């Protein structure tokens, strides 16, 4: 797999995220088992599989939210070298989560503060890292609303007054305002109708390209990964059954399960 990934990386570059033998058990039940891969800067990795295949468990393990039962997740920090996410102090891990990393939830209500305005939602991460200038915070929030195509006059509206697609875009703005290097997305287009999905994917693709973001996108929607992801992991029963470049996996699936998955997509 690294051989594949190296094609995208430049010489002398370190992987952004190194995942080795990550397993997670819920008691005797398996969440995910022996997952290993490298994620390179600027790369988008898709994780697909059916419900219950361990996608979300893996994503939570990778993003510092759920301690794995075994294995390690090492993140290459900007200035301090590699950091073992689960051996670092909780304070360090939480700092990472609200600065260098971002998490986009499937349901925007999980990622937004519904009781405060859109501006405060976008500004929260700035305030969390010590920004104490109201004018600057507001200017950054206005700028980011523009980038995710939300009109500036909605800055002081609460997310409850937004449509589902706008809430999702607001959530993305809120995450990206601290210029993270790595974003985790859990079904970012789930629950949106297809035209809104298409616009959101378009927006995400533009942002990922412009900002040089690395991203890990969990979805069961193969159309989403085809558009967004460079590489693909296919999961079944907690294990990775196939991996490779997205086009290769989708156009020439090797594993029977992947073949089933690809052939199950309804033609429009």
């Amino acid at each position, binding site marked *: 797999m690294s051989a594949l990934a190296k094609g995208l990386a430049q010489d002398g570059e370190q992987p952004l995220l190194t995942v080795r033998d990550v397993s997670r058990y819920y008691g005797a039940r398996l969440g995910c088992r022996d997952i290993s891969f490298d994620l390179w800067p600027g790369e988008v990795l898709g994780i697909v599989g059916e419900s219950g295949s361990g996608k979300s468990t893996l994503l939570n393990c990778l993003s510092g939210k759920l301690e794995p039962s075994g294995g390690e997740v090492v993140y290459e920090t900007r200035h301090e070298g590699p950091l073992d996410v689960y051996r670092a102090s*909780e*304070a360090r891990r*939480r700092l990472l989560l609200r600065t260098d990393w971002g998490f986009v939830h499937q349901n925007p209500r999980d990622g937004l*503060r519904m009781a*405060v*305005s859109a*501006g*405060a939602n976008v*500004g*929260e*991460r*700035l*305030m*969390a*890292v*010590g920004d*104490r*200038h*109201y*004018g600057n*915070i*507001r200017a950054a929030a206005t700028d980011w609303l523009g980038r995710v195509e939300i009109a500036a006059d909605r*800055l*002081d509206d609460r997310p409850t007054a937004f449509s589902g697609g706008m809430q999702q875009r607001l959530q993305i703005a809120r995450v990206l305002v601290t210029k993270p290097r790595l974003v985790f997305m859990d079904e970012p287009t789930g629950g949106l109708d297809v035209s809104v999905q298409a616009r959101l994917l378009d927006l995400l693709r533009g942002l990922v390209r412009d900002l040089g973001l690395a991203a890990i996108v969990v979805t069961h929607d193969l159309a989403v990964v085809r558009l967004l992801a460079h590489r693909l992991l296919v999961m079944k029963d907690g294990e990775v059954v196939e991996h490779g470049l997205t086009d290769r996996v989708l156009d020439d699936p090797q594993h029977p399960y992947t073949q089933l998955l690809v052939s199950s997509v309804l033609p429009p």
Partner: protein
Amino acid sequence: MTRLDDRAGPSEIGVAGYNFAYLDEQTKRMIRRTILKAVAIPGYQVAFGSREMPLAYGWGTGGMQITAAIVGSDDTLKVIDQGADDTTNAVSIRRFFNRTAGVAMTERTAAASVIQTRHRIPETPLRDDQILVYQVPMPEPLRYLEPRETETQKMHALSEYGVMHVKLYEDIARHGRITTSYDYPVLVNGRYVMAPSPIPKFDNPKMDRMPALQLFGAGREKRIYAVPPYTPVKSLDFEDHPFSIDRQPQNCDLCGSHESFLDEIVTDDAGGRLYVCSDTDYCRERREAGGVMSRSAAE
């Protein structure tokens, strides 16, 4: 009830069958240990085994337990509610300690060694031989933004206080200025964000480096916290929207003070209003010292 400044010995006034100051000695020791810990970590909320008091929660059971634990027979107690010595809460708590401890009572801020307060800090500056005990309904400043107790504890432990500014941001975005006017969050000793109990933000600057020891008791929430003498207490704000206090444009109609926090009293149904100091002791002392003649007297 006898006049407040009538002093009566414990034997005459203590209620038979009850310990001095109502609580048993073991409980008082537990509360004193909690207070010591709270003083050692300024602004940190220390859990304690709050007892049932013969008063409903919300009537100052936390403050009463602290007062009961620290008051001694040679202390002089003052109890205020919204700055006044003669409001319901103040009268009932004073009567409680008068009957169970028989300690000396006073209305004069300067004469008190322990002052239990609800919603105000006295106007008269406090000294380092005095203790101010606050009644706190809601000790957790992060609660409105983060409902989970485990999470707020973690946020305190890791100094993750950015979310406090989200509330202030929201005020400015909606109203053009910070409209939080009471229970205004403060940073104690540069470390812990603390709810100063529902005092008006007018009183916040008085907490900063106050010579008196400040103790906060929340009975229902079972928390005690403290600000030791001369500890820096900073009200949270933005660089371009600095903390400021609201000062009423009026002067007190009784004593003429333009320094103190005023209560507005509606006097009739034709728009008549009276502005008076909420700190009744401060107002009375100024009048007795021959301050400005009251408006009602002049009429």
